[in-house]
């Protein structure tokens, strides 16, 4: 990990559980949990997505959760068009993780700069 980076960046992972061992969830708006990791310290918190079972328009609503939590980057499999527009306007970077793996696996790939930028 680079030592010269001083800013702590909050990175959000769409997950099926509340820990770093939880499996990644491919969908963004309907992901059960958002695991938010501070990229430098690797401390994390899990937020239950209140829109996971919502009727419609869940993408922009979920994006608002990320904005409210000061997230700077999102790692997910699939981000819908409306959510992408909100995230892009809020300056949140999007990266695609489509493999079957845990939050830890995705974090590892993200820190090694192996994930493709999307959105």
């Amino acid at each position, binding site marked *: 990990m680079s030592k010269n980076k001083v800013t702590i960046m909050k990175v959000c992972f769409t997950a099926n559980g509340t820990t770093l061992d939880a499996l990644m969830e491919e969908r963004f708006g309907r992901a059960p949990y958002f695991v938010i990791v501070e990229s430098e310290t690797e401390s994390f918190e899990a937020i239950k997505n209140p*829109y996971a079972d919502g009727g*419609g*328009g*869940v*993408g*922009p*609503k979920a*994006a*608002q959760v990320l*904005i409210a939590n000061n997230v700077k980057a999102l790692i997910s499999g699939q981000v819908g068009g*409306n959510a992408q*527009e*909100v995230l892009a*306007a*809020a300056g949140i970077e999007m990266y695609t993780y489509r493999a079957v793996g845990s939050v830890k696996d995705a974090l590892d790939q993200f820190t090694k700069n192996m994930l493709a930028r999307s959105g």
Partner: protein
Amino acid sequence: MKIAVASGKGGTGKSMMAANLAFTLAWTGQVTLVDCDVEEPNLHLFFPAPASTREVTMPVPVIDETKCQHCGLCGEFCQYGALTVLQSRVLFFPELCHSCGGCMLVCPNGAIHEEPKRIGTLSTSAPQPGLKLISGTLETGSPHAVPVIRAAKKQAAHDQLVIIDTAPGTSCPVVEALDGCDACILVTESTPFGLHDLQLAVDVAARLGIPTGIVINRSDGKDEETLRFCIDHDLEILMTIPFSREIAAIQNRGDLLCRAQPEWQKDFCALFFKYRALTGVER
């Protein structure tokens, strides 16, 4: 009296039923045929005639950025995710908006007003004496079928005898089209899919409290399972139309069964009498 023609499964012959029933009944009195399959209206193909067209709109919010303080109340209020308030701008997704007007009410700065957004059109024509055709057409890309269906039905609200052709399926557009009808004709076909989707449609009509009669179209003569289902659920078979290359050919050239083979008119009249008995409503 409002007659709905629905099916569950697509392609069973809803529009064929609705068109032939309207064609037949129009000889005896004024009939209004309403095409509520607004995503793919097709009744005008059977009844080509010059039509007058008007817009269907729904109100959507417009933000006055000079008054907006980006407080975020509208975005919090909106249950459909149509408004997202960022630090210095508001994002609006018109396709998610349900026109509830709540954002306008909660805005403390009077920064929101509504403007009409076009979501579809209504075309009205008089293709034959006694027949009025109203076709709702949803704007391409718009997800708001229900308000267009509502507008089409409203246009026929004061008409005596209304035949409503619904969309296939059992979702919101079908529920909206069925709402307020005296009874519905469910068209099915001699296939497992036809029966499966008929079961779903029967359930929807029952939940809406609408009496139901069944038409078996393209029957191959082996309808035992459909008949058993109808007996079990106390559903009357209003009509059976055989699987016939000749009937298919009539349809394919855009003609009507009852126009090409007028002897079918008495079958459609008989269907109407059975239907009326179902509803208990006099014409």
